[in-house]
């Protein structure tokens, strides 16, 4: 495993944990952190030991935003040439389930990173928001697009225009997160949930994830064609044979991810 400077990583019982680790700046996301995150996600995605990935921050903040110092002198041309969001695009190609566990502040780039998780658990005291408008910009790593697809145009505009924080309960109500949990337990519960997912058939988990994300952009017809191909594809797996055999024999299936 690499020696990362901005994140901590570990693997236990098939669950990888990635923890943002710049607590002195409330885990503000800088470019080295994104590079390290991508490296960690991609290596866990290829690591057979790892069945699911939990992404978290610290007790006070998941991540309070992007590192403003790093970008305040940037120009449109410097950003175009840097093409930093290519790494964010690659984060969207991770095949294994990602469970986000959010404590405290989750703003701006931090919120966008949290939205890269497939499932999101938040502490009761978590706060989400896109305050970019207060700095004369807007989200740049998918925040505008993902928030709109999650909560709808009317609500998304309100949050993006005002830049105010939303509570965990509000985020739950708008379908932005999956569960609200006691702050003391949010990481534990995310790991427990990751273990449950890990016990399911891994190939099904992957192809369901792929199909769900395609269905956001595809028409119903195209989405259903895509779904069908993935459904057929699973019939070439050993786990399909095992799963159906175990069902008939009334015993728990033993999935191998093959």
């Amino acid at each position, binding site marked *: 495993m690499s020696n990362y400077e901005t994140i901590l990583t570990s693997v236990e019982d098939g669950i990888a944990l990635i923890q943002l680790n710049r607590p002195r700046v409330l885990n503000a996301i800088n470019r080295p952190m994104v590079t390290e995150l991508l490296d960690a996600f991609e290596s866990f995605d290829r690591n057979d030991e790892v069945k699911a990935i939990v992404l978290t921050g610290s007790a006070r903040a998941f991540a309070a935003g992007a590192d403003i110092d790093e970008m305040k002198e940037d120009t449109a041309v410097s950003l175009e040439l840097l093409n930093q969001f290519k790494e964010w695009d690659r984060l969207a190609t991770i095949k294994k389930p990602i469970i986000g566990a959010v404590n405290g502040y989750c703003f701006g780039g931090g919120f966008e990173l949290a939205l890269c998780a497939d499932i999101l658990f938040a502490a*009761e005291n978590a706060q989400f928001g896109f305050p970019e408008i207060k700095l004369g910009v807007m989200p740049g790593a998918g925040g505008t697009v993902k928030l709109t697809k999650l909560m709808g145009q009317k609500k998304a505009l309100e949050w993006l225009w005002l830049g105010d924080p939303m509570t965990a309960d509000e985020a739950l109500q708008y379908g932005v997160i999956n569960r609200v*949990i*006691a702050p*003391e*337990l949010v990481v534990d519960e995310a790991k427990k949930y990751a273990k449950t997912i890990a016990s399911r058939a891994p190939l099904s988990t992957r192809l369901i994830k792929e199909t769900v994300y395609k269905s956001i952009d595809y028409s119903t017809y195209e989405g259903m064609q895509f779904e069908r191909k993935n459904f057929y594809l699973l019939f070439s797996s050993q786990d399909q044979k095992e799963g159906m055999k175990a069902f008939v024999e009334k015993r728990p299936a033993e999935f191998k991810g093959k």
Partner: protein
Amino acid sequence: MFETISYETRGKTAWITLNRPDKLNAFTSLMHKEMVSAIKEANKDSHVRAVVITGAGRAFCSGQDLSGSPAGTDYGDVLRKGYNPMVQALVAMEKPVIAAVNGVAAGAGMSLALACDFRIASEKASFIEAFIHVGLVPDSGNLYFLPRLVGHAKAMELAVLGEKITAQEAKELGLVTKTVSEEEFMLEVETFAEKLANMPTKAIGLIKRYMNKSWESDLNEVLEFEAQAQKIAGESADHQEGLQSFLEKRKPAFTGK
């Protein structure tokens, strides 16, 4: 450090005293800000395990200082910027908060007492939903807490008729934990606060957190809250101390952790 209030810690208890006795401790915008700072200070200080809020002089708090608001003041914004953050900070504090109601608690002064976890009243104390007498509505959480504390019908009577109730009547309504003679009042408050400050603070904080949430939750949600709270409490040092002291047949020495 503060102009309109005083803040001190004695033992494990933080004392926040509204300190404008010549104005019957009426609220000003500075007082709101100072209250929020003091509440946050008490919350942050891990040595503090109970908080007392009381008033200097003969009143607890007479509510909004009506002399202070210029014509055209947006009352809604006064609440949003001043009173509401204070009430929210009190409710969010996971430590027991006692309103030591030494004298009259009127209007938003009564609301402040209602937002605390316990109320101990001096026999000299009284409560009055004064808002209606100037054509206003109870605010600062008053409409939330009052019906929950005394029931809807009684809350309507108090809020609409605006009649003063004595400490004894407040006791009969279940609005206060106890009423105490003027002479014994401070000693009784100190004893009560100290008792709370020596209890398992983490568990008290969890009780407060989830009892508050119970008002906006259904049974299945509360059952899940309890399961999470019990897991947290079950891993606390004070739970271990409770079990250990029981086995050793001695009094527990809780640390609040």
